[in-house]
C-alpha cells in the first residue's frame, strides 16, 4: 500500500505541507482565493515540533488495523477493499468522535458545527498528494513502507 511517510531527519517543520493540503482541499484551490473562502479550508496534515531542531509532518497513517475504523459506529470510516486506504464517507458520519478518541496520531480533525470529521484522503485528484509535492526538503515521501525504508537507509 502506498501512503505518505515523513523522514523526521529531513523535516524542518516549515509548514508548506499544511498550506498545500488546505489549498488542495479548498473550493478554489488557489492560495489567495482560498483564504477568503467561508468556511476556511481545513488542513489534514500537521507540522509538529518534536524537540530542539526536530520536527515531523504527520497525518493519517492509513493504519493496517485502523483503530478509527474499528471504533466507528456508523460505518463512515472504512477500509477501501482495493487500496486498503482508510477512507471517510462524510455522508455517513454522525459526529460521534469515536475516531478522535482512538487515533494514535491525532490525525482526525473535528468540525464542531457540521458535526463531521475530516482526514487525509491522499488527494484523489492528483498523482502525488499536494503535501508531498510541496515539501521543500523532500522529507515527505509517497510509497510503500519498504520503499521508504530503502530510501531512508541510502
Amino acid at each position, binding site marked *: 500500500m502506498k501512503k505518505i511517510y515523513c523522514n*523526521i531527519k529531513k523535516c524542518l517543520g516549515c509548514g508548506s505541507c499544511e498550506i498545500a493540503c488546505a489549498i488542495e482541499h479548498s473550493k478554489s484551490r488557489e492560495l489567495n482565493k482560498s483564504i477568503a473562502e467561508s468556511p476556511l479550508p481545513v488542513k489534514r496534515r500537521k507540522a509538529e515540533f518534536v524537540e530542539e531542531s526536530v520536527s515531523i509532518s504527520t497525518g493519517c497513517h492509513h493504519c*493496517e488495523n485502523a483503530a478509527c475504523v474499528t471504533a466507528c459506529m456508523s460505518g463512515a470510516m472504512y477500509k477501501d477493499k482495493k487500496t486498503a486506504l482508510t477512507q471517510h464517507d462524510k455522508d455517513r458520519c454522525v459526529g*460521534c468522535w469515536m475516531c478522535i*478518541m*482512538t487515533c494514535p496520531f491525532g490525525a482526525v480533525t473535528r468540525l464542531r458545527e457540521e458535526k463531521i470529521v475530516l482526514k487525509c484522503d491522499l488527494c484523489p485528484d492528483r498523482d502525488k498528494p499536494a503535501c508531498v509535492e510541496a515539501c521543500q526538503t523532500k522529507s515527505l515521501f509517497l510509497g510503500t513502507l519498504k520503499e521508504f525504508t530503502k530510501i531512508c537507509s541510502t
Partner: protein
Amino acid sequence: MQYVIIGSSAAGINAIEAIRTKDKTSKIIIISDEKNPLYSRCLISYLLAGTIDGKKIWYKPDSFFKDNKVEALLGIKAEKINIKKKEIAIGNKEKIKFDKLLIATGASPKLEDIPGIDKKGVFPLRTIEHTTEIQSMLDKVKSVAVLGGGLIGLRAAYALKNRGKNVSVFVKSGSILSQIIDKDAAGIMQKRIEERGIKIFTGVAAKEITGAKSVDGVALDNGSKHDCELVIIGKGVSPNVEIAKDAGIKTSWGILANERLRTGVEDIFTAGDVSETNDIALEESSINAIWPAACEQGRIAGLNMTGENETYEGSLAMNSIEFFGLPVISVGITKPKSDRYKEIVKKDAGKNIYKKIVLKDGIIVGVIFVNSIENIGIIGTLIKNKADVTSIKDIMLEDYFDYGKIAPLIKKSKRGFKEPEFKETIMTL
C-alpha cells in the same frame, strides 16, 4: 468447515468479515433473534432523537450477508449448545452443526425489580424495535421519566427532549455518568444538560411505577410523585451468558475468554459485550461493553476461528459522548480508588474545559477530556502501550501537545508501539 455465529451485531458482523479475509468458501451460518440486525446499536438514540435519517442507522448494507456468502437465520433464537455433539438447537427444534462456533450474544438491559415495570409505556433502550415502539407512542406523551443517569439513560433523555418532551432524569448516585467520568467532569456536563431544559435529580430513585394499565407516573423514594406517560429504564446492561453457562462453558460475569478469545472449550470462541477479557488499565479480567471492543474482538475471534493465531491484547474502557454541543471523552481508569494513583488536572471553567490524566508509577492509566477533546487518542495510545511518560508529564494537558511530543517516547520504548505505523518514527527520529 462450518462456522456458526450466534448474534449478529458488532461482534458477529466483524467476525464474518474477518473469516472471509482468510476463508472465502466455507459455510458460515449466523443465528440472530433480531430480524434486521445490520444496524448500529449505538445509533438508535440518534434515530429516536431524529438527528439522523433512517438510512444512517444501517451499519452494513442490505446485501451484506449475500456479499459474504452467509446463511442468515434471522428472527431465530439459539436455544441450546451441545458441546459434545457440536450442535446448536434453534427455535424451531432444528439442529445446526458447527466446527467452529462464536458466541456473540451481547448484553441485555438490566430491568429493575420495581413494582409496575411491566406497565405499558415502560421501555429500556437497546434495540431498534424499542426505538420504533417508543416513537409510535410519542404523540400521546408529554412527560418522560428516565431512570438512570448513565450513557444510555442520558442519550434517551437527550433524544426525547429533542422530540419536544418534558424530560426528568432520576439518578440514584450522586452524579451523572458515574461509571465513565469523575464528579468534576459530570458537573460540567450536568450544567449544560440542565441549561437546555432537561431536569436531573441526583440521589433519588424510583420506588414504583404507577398507573392502571399504562404508566401515569413514578413514585420516588423521597416521598414525592412525578407524573409522566413514558418511563425509560437506563440501569446498565448484563451479558447474555445463559446459553453458554447452560452448555457448561466457563463463565464468571461474562464468558471467560483467553487471549485468543477462545472459551474454555476447544473450537468455541466468544466476542463482544458477552465476553470477559483482560482490561489493559485495570490489569484484571473485566467486561468493557463498548462498540470498539466488540468489533475488535469479533475480528480477532473470527481470524482465530480460521486457524490464525492472533492475540487479543485486552480491552480498555472508552466512551465519547456529546450533549448540546459539549463533548466529553474518557478512556481507562478515571476515578482511581487508591492513593497509588496520581492525577494531573487542567481546568478552564469559562470555556467548559476540563482535562484530567490519571497516572500510576509514571504510566497513564486513564484520561478525561471535556470540550477540548483533540488529540485524546494519543493519550489513549500511551495508555495501551504503557509508556513511561515522566519526561512529558508537564506538557500532556497543554494545547500544543501532539503526536510530535510523544515521538521520542516511541523511539525509546522497548515493549510497546509494535504496529508498522510507528516504524517511520522509530526509523527516522
